[in-house]
């Protein structure tokens, strides 16, 4: 890791980037309208907002990948000549680094080779050994005990490990020091302990004079790490205050969502009666009709595999049921969910085609009605349902996948960390929806890396090294119990 040399950036309040009344339009879509912000050395900006608020667009303007349709971006610092043509080149030489919402590593290359890609001015001579030491140093600095080999193929790593590699590469040492690191939802696939290591590193980095933009839908993290919080709403900067001036409720309110009251009571009612057992996995995991079963534990301990196996055992590759038994909500959108060439409409209706077809022909009226209905219910922010799915922001794509599964009549819903990148307001909405669906007798198997979500469950299985290490029900479902079950081995070893 490389906090900039203190001597060269002694002035902690020196601006790194200034945005002045920036506008960004994608055709008719006004993704940013009049955003102004100055980012100074040494500060960590927490950027929050609902899905599609324009956060990714904002940071893509900062890192120069998008050229704003109005307004100006200026980079400062002696390493940043202003006369360079391309914004991205200017941003690059100003020491701005990005970790994108979608992973941008090459799975066919090794960890060390992946450093070569953002590090365009890397010396050619003996570049491998340089890359190896740099990557390992960076990983050690950000994630102590990461256990990742520099020679491992990225394709062989788990999604969390890939995210770690990408973050480490963003903080790594190069010829231009990192002065501003942009992290777009970096923790969405990391489990709690790894996320903590990252937060700690961000604090160290900022203390040494670096700046960070931290985008997350997990407000707790934002409060913990940000020195200033910027709230975006519908393409504008709605609020920008010191973290100390915000309370949790302020923030949610500023983002435009009202925290629904009385959830817990409602939930308790709904949880009252459960039906017979409908699923039992070899690992010992079981679920009853109408139950919301959580799969907890550290990321990559076999939860996703258990779910995928269960799904495959209950669905056939040779036959499609008129009434499928299980549906799947993917968390890794690009790999498991999105069909990139299709419209929102077709993406949404895929799992229910058979249910709504007549003699093998798609009922397109029913299809359109279904999609319309779910757009309303789950709040997909899109102009037209016939727009391509890729024109949606990350979180809104996720909502489409959610709708795809919930629209089906399948009695069991399998969810593989489905709330990655979904904003707080929508999450609450989805929780409510899940509970009401459960009340009608649907069963949910829900893997999540977020404690809040696990707390919504009726029964929780904690995974460790591919096995179930604890089964928690009712009042036992607490963050402490889960953590204890996740870490028991490590504690015993110490």
């Amino acid at each position, binding site marked *: 890791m490389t906090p900039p040399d203190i001597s060269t950036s002694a002035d902690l309040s020196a601006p790194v980037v200034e945005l002045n009344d920036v506008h960004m339009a994608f055709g008719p879509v006004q993704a940013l309208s009049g955003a102004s912000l100055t980012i100074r050395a040494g500060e960590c900006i927490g950027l929050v907002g609902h899905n599609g608020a324009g956060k990714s667009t904002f940071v893509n303007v900062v890192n120069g990948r998008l050229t704003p349709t109005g307004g100006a971006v200026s980079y400062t610092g002696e390493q940043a000549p202003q006369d360079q043509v391309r914004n991205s080149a200017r941003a690059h030489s100003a020491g701005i680094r990005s970790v994108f919402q979608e992973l941008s590593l090459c799975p066919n290359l090794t960890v060390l080779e992946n450093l070569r890609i953002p590090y365009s001015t890397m010396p050619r001579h003996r570049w491998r050994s340089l890359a190896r030491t740099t990557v390992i140093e960076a990983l050690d600095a950000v994630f102590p005990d990461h256990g990742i080999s520099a020679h491992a193929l990225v394709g062989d790593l788990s999604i969390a490990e890939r995210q770690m590699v990408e973050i480490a590469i963003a903080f790594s040492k190069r010829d231009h020091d990192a002065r501003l690191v942009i992290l777009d939802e970096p923790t969405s696939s990391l489990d709690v302990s790894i996320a903590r290591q990252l937060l700690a590193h961000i604090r160290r980095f900022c203390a040494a004079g670096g700046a960070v933009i931290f985008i997350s839908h997990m407000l707790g993290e934002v409060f913990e790490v940000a020195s200033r919080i910027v709230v975006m709403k519908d393409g504008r900067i709605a609020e920008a205050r010191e973290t100390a001036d915000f309370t949790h409720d302020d923030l949610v309110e500023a983002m435009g969502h009202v925290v629904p009251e009385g959830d817990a009571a409602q939930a308790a009612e709904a949880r009252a009666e459960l039906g017979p057992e409908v699923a039992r996995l070899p690992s010992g995991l079981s679920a009853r009709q109408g139950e919301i079963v959580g799969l907890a534990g550290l990321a990559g301990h076999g939860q996703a595999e258990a779910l*995928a196996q269960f799904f495959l055992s209950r669905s056939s590759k040779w036959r499609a049921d008129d009434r499928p038994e299980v549906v799947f909500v993917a968390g890794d959108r690009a790999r498991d969910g999105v069909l990139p060439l299709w419209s929102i409409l077709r993406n949404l209706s895929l799992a229910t085609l058979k249910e709504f*077809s007549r003699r093998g022909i798609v009922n397109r009226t029913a299809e359109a009605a279904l999609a319309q209905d779910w757009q309303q219910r789950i709040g997909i922010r899109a102009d037209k349902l016939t727009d391509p799915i890729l024109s949606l922001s990350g979180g809104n794509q996720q909502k489409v996948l959610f709708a795809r599964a919930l629209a089906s009549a399948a009695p069991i819903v399998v969810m593989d960390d489905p709330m990655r990148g979904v904003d707080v307001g929508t999450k609450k909405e989805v929780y409510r929806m899940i509970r009401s669906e459960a009340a009608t007798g649907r069963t949910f198997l829900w893997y999540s890396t977020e404690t809040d979500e696990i707390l919504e469950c009726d029964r929780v299985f904690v995974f460790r090294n591919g096995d179930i290490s604890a089964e928690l029900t009712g009042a036992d479902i607490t963050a402490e119990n889960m953590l204890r079950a996740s870490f028991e081995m490590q504690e015993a070893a110490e």
Partner: protein
Amino acid sequence: MMMKPDTSNPVAGTSPNLLVATIRKPWIWSYLAALLAFLATMVLSGGQGALSLLYAALTFASFSVMVGIGQMFVITLGPGNVDLSIPATMTLVATLSLKFMGSEAGLILPGFLIALIVGLGCGMFNFALILLLRIPPIIATLSSSFLYQSLAIWSNRGLRIKPPEPLAEFSTSGVLGLPNLALVALLLAGLAWVVLERAVVGRWVLAIGQNLRAAQLSGVPVHAVRFCVYVGSALLAAVTGFLLASFSGGANLNMGAEFMLMSIAVVVIGGSSIAGGNSNVPGIWGAALFMFLLVSMLNSYGLGAGVRLVLTGIIIVTVVIVASKRKHSA
């Protein structure tokens, strides 16, 4: 039905202006190119023989269309999916069925049945290699095509047996000024269009082409769909082989050879994305007509083989460039 603007394609949008919507279709370019080639030939002959050229174009395009449809479904399954066994399947089917019929008019129906059964067998064998042995489709179909070729040689040693008279008659005549073959191909194309644009199975094929894993996790019976596609391609090759042999007076061991490239060419010139997940039927007809008319035009102008080949290549590339939407800036 073929020409009906495809309003279900959401990417193209549902524009109220039919003309604009039509022009945006990637397949329109193949028709334009075909028209140009046709006109260029007519300029040379002074408008003489227009009808007979059109008739010939429809006849010969039918073969490319039929194998092209099968190939299109295969290609739509995504990168790496392509059926190279089409020529060998055609040859094997034609050889076996013509040998069986032995020019007997009474045996036409059972002969056709045999053609279908052999086609089915080839398709199942191809897919077995792909599914059970996990051989990449290009190589699997290439390898199996060697086997089919051997079988064809072994079964009939290259002897040309005449098709039964009524069958030859059917395949070389027409009704209402349209060749029978073109009618068969139109029917098949119409069917393919319905499957691809309206049927659940079509959606499934398109979904698999974009992301097999995602499709499977959305409940698409991926094995069954891919099975149908490969078997369908082989069946279409079988029908084409059967008809081609009936049309040209017997089976040849190398009769399918040119359909390897031709079947791929008509699919992609017709505007389907080779990356899978996006395909269209009308374009296949346009491309098949174009490929025939292009060669006729170049032949008519009396150009040497080398020039002819070079021009064919340049024109194919140009059509593809014109039909493409600019994706990246340099």
